[in-house]
C-alpha cells in the first residue's frame, strides 16, 4: 500500500468556458466546465487543473463562478492557475472551492508572494508553476532556464535553483512544464523533470509534451514525478484516464483504479 501516482487533466478556461476543443462523444456542451469535469471524474481523474487564460482583468472574475459550479458537483481536488497575483486572489479562489492555486509569473516578479501565501493558507494549497527551457549547448551539462510569457521571455533564472528556492519559500508542490516539449506530443523533458524532482522534498507534477500513454508512465518511472498532467490526449478522446491508469499499472506504477 502506498500513495498513488496521479493523473491530472488540464483544461484551459477563457471567460468561463473551456477552450481548445474538448471532444467527448457523450456530452452536450463541450465548453461547459462542469460537464467536462464530471466526465473526467467518472473516468477516474485524480485531480483537475483549470488554467485561466482570460485576457482581460475585468472578465477574470468568471473563473470564480467556474470554480464554484465545478466544486459543488465534482468532489475531487481542483487546482486553478492563471493570473494569480495577490493574497486576495488566492483567498477568493480557495473560498470558491479551489483546493490549490498555481502561481506562475507572480512568483518570479515577487518570490515573497509565495511565502506570504503559503504562510497564510498552508503549503498544501500553493503550487508553483515552473516554465523551463533548456539553454545548455548540446554536449554540455544540462541546464534549464525559467521563461515567462509562454516561453518567449528568458529570465536568466536557473530552473533547478529556482525550484529549490520555491520549495524553501513554502510551495507545497511544483508544476514543471518544459517549454521545449509543450505541444510537441513527443513526451516530457524527462531529464528536467527528474533533475527537479530529485532536488526538492516536495511533489513534482510533470507537464508538457504528452502524446501517448507511455509518455505518462515515463514521467513517473524516469522523471520521478508524483503526478503527470496532460491536456490534448484526453480532450480529443484519444485515450481515457482509465486507459492511462491501466497502462501505468501494467508498468508497476501504483494508481487509483
Amino acid at each position, binding site marked *: 500500500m502506498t500513495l498513488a501516482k496521479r493523473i491530472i487533466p488540464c483544461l484551459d478556461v477563457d471567460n468561463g468556458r473551456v477552450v481548445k476543443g474538448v471532444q467527448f462523444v457523450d456530452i452536450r456542451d463541450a465548453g461547459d466546465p462542469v460537464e467536462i469535469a464530471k466526465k473526467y471524474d467518472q473516468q477516474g481523474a485524480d485531480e483537475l487543473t483549470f488554467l485561466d487564460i482570460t485576457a482581460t482583468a475585468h472578465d477574470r472574475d468568471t473563473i470564480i463562478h467556474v470554480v464554484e459550479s465545478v466544486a459543488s458537483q465534482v468532489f475531487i481536488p481542483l487546482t486553478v492557475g492563471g493570473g494569480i497575483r495577490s493574497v486576495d486572489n488566492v483567498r477568493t479562489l480557495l473560498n470558491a*472551492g479551489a483546493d490549490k492555486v498555481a502561481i506562475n509569473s507572480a512568483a518570479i516578479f515577487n518570490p515573497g508572494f509565495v511565502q506570504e501565501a503559503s504562510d497564510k493558507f498552508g503549503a498544501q494549497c500553493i503550487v508553483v508553476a515552473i516554465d523551463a527551457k533548456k539553454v545548455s549547448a548540446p554536449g554540455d551539462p544540462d541546464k534549464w532556464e525559467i521563461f515567462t510569457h509562454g516561453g518567449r521571455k528568458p529570465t536568466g533564472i536557473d530552473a533547478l535553483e529556482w525550484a529549490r528556492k520555491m520549495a524553501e519559500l513554502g510551495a*507545497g508542490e511544483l508544476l514543471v512544464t518544459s517549454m521545449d516539449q509543450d505541444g510537441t506530443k513527443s513526451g516530457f523533458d524527462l531529464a528536467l523533470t527528474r533533475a527537479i524532482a530529485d532536488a526538492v522534498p516536495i511533489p513534482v507534477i510533470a507537464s508538457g509534451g504528452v502524446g501517448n500513454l507511455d509518455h505518462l508512465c515515463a514521467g513517473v518511472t524516469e522523471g520521478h514525478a*508524483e503526478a503527470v498532467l496532460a491536456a490534448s490526449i484526453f480532450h480529443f478522446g484519444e485515450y481515457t484516464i482509465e486507459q492511462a491508469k491501466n497502462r501505468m499499472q501494467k508498468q508497476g506504477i501504483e494508481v487509483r483504479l
Partner: protein
Amino acid sequence: MKEVETGVNHKTVCVVDYGMGNLNSVAKAAQTVAPSQTRIEITHDPARIDQADAVIFPGQGAARACMQALTEAGLHQAILKASNEKPFLGICMGLQVLMGHSEENAGVDCLNRLPGNTHRFDLTPYPGLKLPHMGWNRIHQTLEHPLWHGIEQDAWFYFVHSYYVRPEAADTIAGQTTHGQTFCSAIAQDNIFAIQAHPEKSADSGLHLLKNFMHWSGT
C-alpha cells in the same frame, strides 16, 4: 449507494467555521449526500453548534493558526462540548487538533480531547517519498464502524498533510495508511469519528462516508 439503516436523519448538521480552510467544499459534499430534510449549516456561532444534531469539524493549514483561530472565534468550549455529546466528525486538521499536542510550529498544545499526540512524518528511511503526503492513498479499516459501512476495505481517499496522529488508545484506531511508515488515518471513540483524509475530495468513498455520517446516531 447503500446507507446505514439506523433510521436516523439529522435535522441540522453544523460545519464549524473558524476561518481555516475551505468549508464550502465540505458543506457542498455533505449537502449532496444529505437526506432532503437535513440542513447543512456553516456556522461560527457556539449556540448553533450547541443546537445542532451533529457536527462536522474540518480544518486546514497549520496547527498553531488553527488553535489560534478557534480561540479567537471563541469556539474552544463549544467544540469540546459537541465532541462529548453528539455525532462528531473531525476532518484533517480537525482530527489533529483533537489530540493533546502537536509537533507542528515548534509545538502547539491542542484541544486534548483524545489522548495522544500529532507528529511529523520522518521519511529519512524512505528516500524518494515526499512531503506533504499529498494525493490518493488507501485506508485499511481496522475497526468495524457505521461510518465505514458500504466502503470497501483499503478504499482510496485523498490526503494532504505532513503530520499524523498517534493515539494512546490503540483500540480507537479505526483506519491505517502507509506512507513509508504506517500511521493512524482514522480514530473512532464513542461519538467521535475523525479522519486524516478529506472525504469531501475523495470522490465516491468520501461521499459515502459523509452519507453514513448523516445517518449515524453516534454510537
